[in-house]
């Protein structure tokens, strides 16, 4: 249940930005979450609904964009299927994940006076 730690980090970041802009409140938050980031979005939303209470983010839902995992050979760049052995079919090189572990607060919307 590390989603609580992550929800708290989102709140800290959002409130810091809101303070910097002297915002009255936050009205929108957009996240980018990789399919293999280790975060379960429903659990994160549940944790978020608790941590946002009585803060400038109260009532704000998270808008989540998920990113699919992509694996690619480190040597020749050939894509390797998810779930396949991570060895390149073409050159035998080792593949690594290129996308899918994102955990990013992309955008914040605030109401300013």
């Amino acid at each position: 249940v590390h989603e609580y730690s992550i929800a708290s980090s989102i709140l800290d970041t959002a409130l810091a930005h809101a303070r910097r802009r002297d915002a009255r409140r936050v009205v929108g938050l957009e996240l980018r979450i990789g399919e293999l980031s280790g975060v379960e979005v429903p659990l994160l939303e549940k944790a978020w609904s608790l941590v946002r209470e009585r803060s400038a983010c109260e009532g704000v839902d998270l808008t989540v964009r998920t990113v699919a995992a992509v694996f690619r050979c480190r040597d020749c760049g050939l894509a390797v299927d998810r779930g396949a052995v991570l060895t390149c079919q073409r050159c035998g090189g080792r593949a690594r994940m290129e996308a899918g572990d994102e955990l990013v607060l992309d955008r914040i919307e605030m109401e300013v006076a």
Partner: protein
Amino acid sequence: MCDVCGCGDPAIVSEDLHHRILADNDRVAAHNRDHFARRGMLALNLMGSPGAGKTALLEATRRAAPDLRLAALSGDLATENDAKRLEAADVPARTITTGTACHLDAAMVHHALHDWPAASADVFVIENVGNLVCPADFPLGAERRVVVISTTEGDDTVRKHPLIFRDADVCVVNKVDLAGPVGVDVDVIERDFRTMNGHAPFIRTNAKTGEGVDALMDALLDQ
């Protein structure tokens, strides 16, 4: 205020942030990494399932390499058992009591290092809370991540917990002597591991007898 007519209505502004959510943890982890590097210590983040044999492998390492200067920081929800076992095995050790927290984070390690810098170790092991899920997202500033599982958990452990294995620098399967009795094929575990991780050594051990511990030390010290 509204920019269009100055009517006093609140205006909505949006900002692109592209802020990594766990950037704070990463910043403290970098500080910890610097702490270890300045002291010439090889720091390990030892993760694994509860009961896989993380502490037993450290005890076995002590037996296999009596001259290696080892120290350990053990994360535990409620007890100091692991640190006590390690101290009894002549490995200086302290506990981070996490209460209900399911993982260590960089700040907990940083705080513990303030009280106990363990400046004389060659290898400094941070023994994470027994858990194959949550620790994966929280780098601690260790040079290498070691993930330990055991045969008695079944041969689908890697398949069930892909994330932690993806970022492992070494994967250890312990209790290989029990694979036969519990009907587990370690080759299946290795094949699953290779679908998540193309580069890290895969090492089979029996911490009770010390089998595989030399290979583990080679993998850790030679990388």
